[in-house]
C-alpha cells in the first residue's frame, strides 16, 4: 500500500532479558524470573498471556511457550514456572539443568490465547498441577480491579503443590486445594450447579481434566462459550519423514525428536508461528500434494479440514507416508 516492501520476521516481537532469579519450588517445578537487559519496564500484559522462551541448547534452538505468572501490575519482572518433564523433548530439562542467574536469554512479547472474559460476573478457575500458572497472573489482575473469583486447584501431593502456601495465605476462602494422594477430588457437579448467572469457568491442566470439566458443564446446562480452556501441546516425537518445501525449493528430513516446524526453521526457512502448541493458527500451512497419512494433533483446524488433507499445523502435527509437499 504505502512504503517500501516490509520484511517481517516470524513470531512475536522479541525482548532481550537476563535471568534475575531461579527459585526451585519443589522436586518438579522451578520459577525463573527475568529482567530486561535495557532496564526499561516490560510491556503490560493481560492475565493468561504466555511468552515463548528461546533457548540455545548447544547450538540447537529450542522455543517453548510458558504462561506468564507474575503480577501484570508489576512490569519490572516477568516470571514463568517450568515443570521438569523427564520424558519430554528437552526444553524443560534445559531450563532446569542449564539456566542460571545472569544468563542472557530472548523471550517474545506476551501473546494471550487464554484471556479472561471481562463480562463475567464471577470467574471460576480450575487448575491441575502446573496448570496453575496462568491463574496466578489472572488472580493478580482481578485483585487489582476487585474482581470476583474462586480457585479450585488439584495437585498430586502437598509436596508438589506449587504456590499452594502463598495462595492459601493471601486469599483464604477463595482458594480450594485438592490433593490426589489424599483422595480429595473437586465436587464438580455441585460446584457448577451453585454458580451465579454470568459465571465463566476456566480450566488449565491435563487433557483429562479439561475434557471432564467441559463435559460436566455441558451436561449441567452451561453455555459452551462460558467454559474456557488452555492446553499447550508439546510436539510429540515420531518416525522421521521427508518433506518437499515448494516455495523454498528444498527437500528436508524431519528428525524423530523435532517437530515439522522446527525442521523447517532448521533449514533456514522463515515460517510463521506464535504459540508452537497447536492453538493459535499462525503456522497453518497448505499441502500441495501428499501420499500417506497425516497425524493431526492441533486444536486449530476442524475435523473437515483434518480429513481434507489440504492443511497441516507443523508445530505439533506429523506425517507418515511416501511423500509430502508443502506450500512453504
Amino acid at each position, binding site marked *: 500500500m*504505502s512504503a517500501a516492501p516490509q520484511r517481517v520476521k516470524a513470531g512475536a516481537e522479541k525482548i532481550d532479558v537476563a535471568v534475575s532469579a531461579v527459585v526451585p519450588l519443589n522436586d518438579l517445578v522451578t520459577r525463573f524470573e527475568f529482567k530486561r537487559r535495557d532496564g526499561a519496564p516490560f510491556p503490560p500484559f493481560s492475565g493468561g498471556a504466555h511468552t515463548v522462551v528461546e533457548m540455545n541448547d548447544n547450538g540447537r534452538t529450542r522455543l517453548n511457550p510458558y504462561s506468564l505468572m507474575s503480577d501484570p501490575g508489576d512490569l519490572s519482572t516477568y516470571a514463568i514456572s517450568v515443570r521438569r518433564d523427564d520424558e519430554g523433548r528437552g526444553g524443560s530439562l534445559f531450563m532446569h539443568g542449564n539456566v542460571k542467574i545472569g544468563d542472557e536469554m530472548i523471550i517474545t512479547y506476551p501473546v494471550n490465547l487464554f484471556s479472561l472474559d471481562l463480562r463475567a460476573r464471577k470467574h471460576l478457575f480450575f487448575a491441575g498441577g502446573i496448570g496453575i500458572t496462568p491463574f496466578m497472573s489472572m488472580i493478580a489482575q482481578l485483585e487489582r480491579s476487585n474482581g470476583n473469583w474462586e480457585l479450585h486447584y488439584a495437585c498430586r501431593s502437598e509436596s508438589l503443590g506449587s504456590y499452594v502456601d502463598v495462595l492459601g495465605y493471601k486469599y483464604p476462602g477463595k482458594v480450594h486445594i485438592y490433593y490426589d494422594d489424599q483422595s480429595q477430588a473437586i465436587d464438580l457437579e455441585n460446584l457448577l450447579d451453585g454458580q451465579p448467572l454470568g459465571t465463566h469457568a476456566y480450566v488449565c491442566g491435563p487433557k483429562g481434566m479439561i475434557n471432564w470439566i467441559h463435559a460436566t458443564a455441558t451436561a449441567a446446562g452451561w453455555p459452551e462459550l462460558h467454559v474456557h480452556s488452555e492446553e499447550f501441546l508439546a510436539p510429540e516425537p515420531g518416525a522421521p519423514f521427508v518433506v518437499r518445501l515448494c516455495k523454498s525449493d528444498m527437500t528436508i528430513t524431519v528428525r524423530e525428536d523435532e517437530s515439522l516446524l522446527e525442521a523447517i526453521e532448521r533449514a533456514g526457512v522463515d515460517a510463521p508461528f506464535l504459540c508452537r502448541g497447536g492453538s493459535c493458527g499462525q503456522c497453518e500451512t497448505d499441502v500441495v500434494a501428499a501420499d500417506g497419512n497425516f497425524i493431526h494433533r492441533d486444536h486449530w483446524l476442524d475435523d473437515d479440514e483434518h480429513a481434507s488433507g489440504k492443511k497441516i499445523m507443523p508445530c505439533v502435527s506429523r506425517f507418515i507416508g511416501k511423500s509430502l509437499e508443502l506450500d512453504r
Partner: protein
Amino acid sequence: MTLHFNDETFRDDYSFKNSQRAIDRFPFPFHEDSYMYSVNMEQHRGGPADSIYEMRFDVDEHYVAEMHDRAMVLADDPLRCQSIPHMTLAGWDLLELIMVSKSEDYPDLFELHRDGDTWRWVNKPLGIDDTFTFMDETTLPYGPMEYITRQAQGDFCVLDQRDENLWMDAGMITTQADWSLDFDLGMNFFEWHAPVPLAHEKGIFVRALKFLLNIQQGAPARRLNWTMTVNPLLDTSPENYHKWGIQKTSVTPENIGSKQHLRVELQTFFRLPRSNALVFPIRCYLCSFQDLMTKPKWGRRLHRVIRDLPEELATYKGFIDNRPMMLDYLSKFDDGQPTSPGVFPDAVPEPK
C-alpha cells in the same frame, strides 16, 4: 518541524482547506489504475519521513479544528461515544497507548510525566494540563476512552476479543463514513460488516478476521479504505443523513472540483495489552478533486478507477448518481499516459 493548526470548519461555511504540505502527504489510496476489495494489510511501523504513515498517530494541521468539531457532535448527540462497562480496562489501555505514542512522537506538542500511578498529561495544542491517577476513573472528567479520544483525531472502535470473534463494545465515532456506533454497538465482526457488497462472497471478511485476531502486542497493522464526500464534512453519520445527504444534489459541473472530496481512511490496528482487546482507529483525510488534480498521476488514475468501479461499489459508497458528472470532470485530467506503480505522486514534476 513546528505545526501550524488551521482555524477552519467542517460544517456551515466549510472553511476547511489543505495546505501544500497536506496535499503532498495526502494518502492517495490507489496503487494501480483499478480497485477491488482485498485484505490489503501491512505492518504499521513507520513509513517515509513526514508521510502520514510515519507516526503511530498522525497529528496534522487539522488537529485543533477536528477536536472542536468532535466536541460539537458530542454536545448534540452523546451516544456517538459509548463504552459497555467491561471495556473500561481497554479504555485505560487506549489512553496509555495514545499518551505514550504522542508524547514520544511529538515531544514539542505533548508531554506525559509518570510517577507510579500518578500521571500528568500536557496537551499544548488544546491547552490541557491534567494530573490524574492511572486506572482510577474518578480522577478524570470523562471515562478514559472518552477523555483521550476527545484529544485524538479519527474515530476509535474498541473491540473486545472473545469466542474467536471481535465485538464492537466501545467506541468514539464522530467522523464516520455513514455507519452508526449506536446501531452497531455489541455486534460482532460479521454482523457489523453485513451491509458491505461483494466482499462476503470473496471470503474477505473470514480472512480479515483471522488476521485481526492474531494481531499481537508490539506489532500493529494498517490499511487504507476510501469513499466520496460532498463538501469537507467529517460527520457523515446516518444520524445526520437528513442534513448532509441532500448536499449530494448541490454538485454542478462548475463547483465539482472544489465541492467533491475523496475521503480516505487510514485504518490501524493495535493489540491492547491489559485487556487483550483490539483498538481500531479510523483516521479520515479529505482532499478536494481540484487539489488532487495538481498531481498528474493521481488525476489520471482517479479517472480510471472511478470509471471502472463495479456498480455495486459506486452505489454502496453513495456516489452512483454523481458518477457521470465526476467522470466528465476527471476525464479532462486523463491524457491516456501510463502511470507509475504505487500510491505516491511522481517525485519529478512533469513539464507543462
